[in-house]
């Protein structure tokens, strides 16, 4: 099974340049995040470059501080590197939680059908229309200094319904496929059918769901940071941008403060989006081009 998944992954990657590019960028970013403590340490050269007033404030980029320093005299490069890893973490946390919850709800609703589906779908529908921004802000106003993980959980409370909705409709269309019938007459039990017949075919949708939840979380966190609410104790990309905006970095000429994090975020969004689109293109049977009729 794992081998099969692996070969399937390889096959899809080979089929789409966009997917491959997205994955490569993502991988690079994850690597950067993994090594961020080392990089930060190297930048600090013995000091903690993220400590307040570690250096003079508002230094222009130079050999010592490639991206300069911020209003509290922290090294911007070090900030960006460690912020990158925080942003990726929040995306991963929220992405995983909301995808898992979404997938479970979607499968239960879509496969069981009947009143279970009715109740679950109505509930998802309800959560979908509640605007998340005010709720998130209200939540974080109180949970201001909570850990990254809890922020991730909070964000996923609101993002799972999206995943659930799209996946449910796919389950609905898949469960009447002949190969599901064939599995049934081959004595496959419900769980087995879900796991082996439906799930693999939903991988692209699950991938898309994961990516969009992760994006949503990272973006949502930026939104929170930008109005001054976010997890305490850590710096994420949104916070750096928030700082830049609030301190007027643009007019000061402190471009690294906003250009670098925004470019990184954009790159991350683009990478995830490329993976999304790549997956959809690869898995869309119409686009796969079956020879003959």
């Amino acid at each position, binding site marked *: 099974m794992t081998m099969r998944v692996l070969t399937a992954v390889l096959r899809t990657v080979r089929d789409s340049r966009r997917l491959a590019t997205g994955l490569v960028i993502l991988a690079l970013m994850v690597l950067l995040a993994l090594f961020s403590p080392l990089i930060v340490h190297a930048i600090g050269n013995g000091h903690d470059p993220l400590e307040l007033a570690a250096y003079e404030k508002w230094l222009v980029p130079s050999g010592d501080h490639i991206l300069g320093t911020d209003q509290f005299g922290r090294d911007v490069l070090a900030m960006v590197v460690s912020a990158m890893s925080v942003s990726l973490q929040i995306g991963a946390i929220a992405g995983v939680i909301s995808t898992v919850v979404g997938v479970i709800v979607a499968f239960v609703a879509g*496969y*069981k*059908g*009947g009143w279970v*589906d009715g109740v679950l779908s*109505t*509930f998802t*529908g*309800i*959560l*979908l*229309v*509640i*605007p998340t*921004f*005010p*709720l998130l*802000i*209200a*939540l974080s*106003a*109180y949970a201001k200094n909570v850990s990254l993980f809890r922020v991730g959980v909070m964000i996923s409370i609101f993002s799972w319904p999206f995943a659930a909705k799209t996946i449910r409709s796919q389950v609905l269309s898949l*469960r009447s496929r002949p190969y599901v019938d064939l599995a*049934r007459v081959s*004595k*496959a*039990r*419900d769980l087995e059918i879900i796991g082996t017949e439906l799930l693999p075919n939903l991988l692209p949708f699950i991938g898309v769901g994961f990516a969009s939840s992760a*994006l949503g979380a990272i*973006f949502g966190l*930026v*939104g929170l940071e*930008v*109005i001054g609410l976010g997890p305490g104790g850590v710096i994420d990309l949104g916070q750096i*941008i928030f700082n830049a*905006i609030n301190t007027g970095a*643009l*007019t000061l000429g402190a471009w690294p403060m*906003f250009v670098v994090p*925004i470019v990184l*975020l*954009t*790159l991350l*969004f*683009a990478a995830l*989006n*490329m993976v999304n*689109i790549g997956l*959809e*293109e690869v898995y*869309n049977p*119409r*686009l796969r081009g079956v020879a003959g009729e």
Partner: protein
Amino acid sequence: MTATAPPAEAVEITAKSAARSGLRAWLSRHPLAAYALRRFGLYLVELWGALTVAFFFFRLIPGDPVRTLIQTLQQNYIYNQQASTEVIARYQHEFGLDGNIFTQYLKYMNKLILHGDLGPSLINYPTPAQNVILHSLPWTIGLLGISAVLAWVLGIIIGAVAGWRRGKAGSAIITNLSIALSHVPFFFVALILVYIFAYTLGMLPARSAYDSNISPGLSLDFIGSVLKYGLLPGLSIVVIGAFGWILSTRMLMVPVLGEDYLTYAEAKGLKPWRILTRYALRNCYLPQVTAFGISLGFIFNGNVLVEQLFNYPGLGTTLVTAIQQLDFNTILGVTDMAIFSVLTAVLLLDLLLPLLDPRVKYWK
């Protein structure tokens, strides 16, 4: 278990047909009416559910808004002023925060449903929250609403063309640009626009919603001024918003391109533009209509940063102020209005959909 069919597939008819009353019979003869009725019922359930979830969500957050407010006032304006227990008790009552949560809920729903009353606002006490919201809502709808529609229309058209000409260089550029830029924050674009157009070129105003020398009204001057002042903030939203729609339209377009009726339309020797609009686009824009309905909800979030940057008198800033002061009635009011509008918009669209697309299965 393995042998049973999914329960939804088959239906017990015998018992049902016996119990079939006159209304039911009529409804089964008028499936559209039955659909409308059922859809409306679902609407009511969702509305009630969403309002309830929102209410409890806010009330169950720990924290005491009245105390917070007094604290804020102390810090900001009235130094060394102490909040007496009397003051706190009084406002707890005023804001419906006294008593247990279920009586609070009943009181709130009662006022909301029977009187359309959201309770007094805290950020502008004792003005009712609905008035506070209604005052900033038109600006937000004007700015975000119009830009959202524009972004949608542009996004659909460009996205359709990009999907249509898939494989061409121009399309690839647009697609990749959209992938990269669709998530750049609005305010970043706004900031750059301000810097260039307002301050470097001095062409457009950078703040406010209209020229304060012109008094608001239905005059041409005023409308012109509103448009002029709305151009920069609007543009930033349109630009980024459109990229998102381009991407999703393109994604919808691509599978449609494989359809036989497109090949057939080509064989018919129709002009490409006609095939694109009448054949391809018409078959894929429907999900975008629904998506647009849902995206309307975001208008109620306001676009806080853009509004702040342009000092725009919209809902976003009101909302942020309300949130900073924990003005429950206003926040919940905005949330309620968003819920109501989105659900209503989606309801209307769903009822309209059978007219837009004959294939829509309106019996489910």
